[in-house]
């Protein structure tokens, strides 16, 4: 059949080209990681430098993985590429939950002192709260993405205000120092929960492996997915819960970085131009790792820590978002 000879090479060629792109990106990730570890390291204090840099590098890689994967999955599930979970305020919600737990339990309790225990409690609460809030929003707005997005941006400031209020109520005098212990940031990464986070992410991938395999079909839309015999609602519910927890992991480790997911997910989609989620997710994760690690490298050595990387991501991401919003024919 003529069709066969014509198409097979094309399909495989496109896939091979993408595989090549992904391989180059993987090399770049490794290069960035090596540079991050070794640039301007003083050989005399090598092991000391490594004890600082290695955990931070791992944290950044995990965060990039969680955000990159969650953003692609979320976009495909709600069938819209200008929205990411962080734009809807999920990371502010996590920060709020963590603060609220410490607020209720007291700053001397085990929930405040043991990072792993508090992380576990936060995860459970996050899963419940996010499902309730965002489930309600999507239902109430009839899945109108623009409304959800606008409400999400408002919720971001809402959660932020409550979080800030709680912190001030807890300790009106030491507001700033309390804030920095409650909310992780790139200058203050939460490396105590590395192991726990890895376990959480591994469990998520294992439990959701069937649903993740369905992603390609889910992006055809609800009617088509059902037509092809997929239990649509169940898969969507499970995947969204997974997204929520992945965002919780990332936020717990490096704090909120709102536009990160938007940038890396769309860069991956533009670069790979495919619907295959295995490739899209990998691309997004690699982009995230490159941006975070290389960005942090520049911040530490060029700006000597003067400017947090999140500032660059906010400006770049905001402009990119406006560009996407204004150039797309369909939202």
């Amino acid at each position, binding site marked *: 059949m003529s069709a066969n000879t014509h198409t097979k090479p094309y399909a495989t060629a496109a896939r091979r080209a993408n595989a090549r792109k992904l391989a180059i990106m993987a090399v770049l990730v490794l290069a960035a990681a090596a540079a991050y570890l070794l640039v301007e390291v003083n050989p005399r204090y090598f092991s000391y430098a490594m004890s600082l840099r290695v955990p931070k590098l791992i944290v950044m890689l995990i965060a990039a993985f969680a955000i990159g994967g969650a953003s692609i999955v979320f976009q495909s599930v709600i069938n819209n590429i200008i929205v990411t979970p962080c734009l809807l305020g999920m990371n502010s919600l996590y920060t709020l939950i963590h603060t609220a737990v410490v607020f209720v339990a007291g700053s001397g309790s085990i929930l405040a002192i043991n990072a792993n225990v508090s992380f576990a409690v936060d995860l459970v609460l996050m899963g419940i709260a996010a499902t309730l809030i965002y489930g309600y929003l999507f239902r*109430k707005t009839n899945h109108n993405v623009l*409304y959800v997005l606008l409400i999400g*941006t408002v919720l971001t400031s*809402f959660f932020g205000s409550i979080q800030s*209020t709680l912190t001030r109520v807890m300790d009106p005098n030491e507001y700033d120092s309390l804030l920095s212990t409650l909310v992780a940031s790139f200058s203050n990464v939460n490396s105590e929960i590395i192991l726990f986070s890895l376990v959480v992410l591994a469990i998520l991938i294992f439990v959701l492996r069937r649903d993740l395999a369905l992603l390609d079909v889910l992006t055809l839309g609800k009617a088509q997915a059902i037509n092809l015999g997929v239990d649509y609602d169940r898969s969507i519910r499970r995947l969204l819960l997974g997204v929520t927890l992945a965002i919780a992991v990332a936020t717990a480790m490096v704090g909120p970085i709102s536009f990160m997911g938007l940038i890396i997910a769309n860069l991956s989609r533009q670069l790979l131009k495919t619907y295959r989620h295995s490739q899209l997710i990998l691309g997004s994760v690699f982009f995230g790792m490159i941006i975070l690690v290389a960005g942090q490298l520049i911040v530490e050595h060029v700006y000597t820590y003067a400017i947090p990387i999140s500032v660059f991501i906010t400006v770049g991401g905001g402009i990119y978002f406006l560009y996407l919003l*204004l150039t797309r024919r369909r939202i």
Partner: protein
Amino acid sequence: MLIDKRRSRAQKEESTIKRYLTTILLSLFLLILSVWSLFIGVIDLELSTLLNGNLEQLKIFLVSRLPRLLAILCTGVGMSVAGLIMQQLCRNKFVSPTTGATISSAQFGILLALLFMPNSTLWGRALFAFAAAILGTWIFVWFIQRIRFKDVIMVPLVGIMFGNVIGGITNYLAYQYEMTQALSTWLVGHFSLVVRGRFELVYLIVPLVILAFLFANHFNIVGMGKDFSKNLGVPYNLVLFAGLSIAAMITASVVVIVGSISYIGLIVPNLVAMFKGDRIRGTLVDTALFGAIFVLACDMLARVVIAPYELPIELIVGILGSILFVGLLLYRLRRGNKAIRLGSAHSGGCAAAVSQVEGGDGA
């Protein structure tokens, strides 16, 4: 005929009372609230000792409580009037100093003032904030007028993101020149520093609000659309930009003196319009009064919650405001798309309101 006329006159009188009823009630309520607020604080004031000429108490009253009240009233009136003007001119219910990048532009201006003139006075900073706020708002409106949006909701979304970008640049400069500490004063609005002698806000806002009242009719006409205002001989672009400038200057004044206070310009005009309709002339006074009440109530709450400390008012307004805003959005969504569009159905203006809420036609 005669009976008809008489009846209509009676109706007119009745409706006159009705029309001013809300205004009167709001004024009374604001008055009571204002007096009450004067007696909330760390140190208990009592009316009797105050009248007896207790100098200590009189001093607190004059140095702290009264200036603060005035600042609050001016903020409430100013921000809500600015929001109303912007909504009217852009013909979009979701435009406001918060969602139109005005506040973040003003903050950017203040930072520039701090950078270029480290010893600048308040007036110098105000000047920079004015210029930046006006420019930022103009750019935003120019921008959204050039784009035909598929949905009214796009306008605030673009505005918020635009504000985010400006805020990010502000942050960048602040970090670069180690000004974050200095800038934080203007990022989170609070009244705790407003004491005697700081009546600048009053000087700034009262004239601007009077100006807004004088031109209310013009704004109304421009809000009806370009062709409509041309037909009536009103210079569209001039009034549009004058109106936006007034709104931006009011906002910048508030940002310079008490810091950023979001949502008032968005929430208050919308709440008032839900009860009174969309004509600016009729609602301007009520909006101003309600805005003052809203900010005053929030401030009283902020002072009481963790007394003897106080919360920045921006937090209280942020919490209440965002709840109200989400409620408003969902309310308007449920009422259908017509409710989201502005009353007039002319085309053009800031946004072409073709909403795309999905809904099966059932056939």
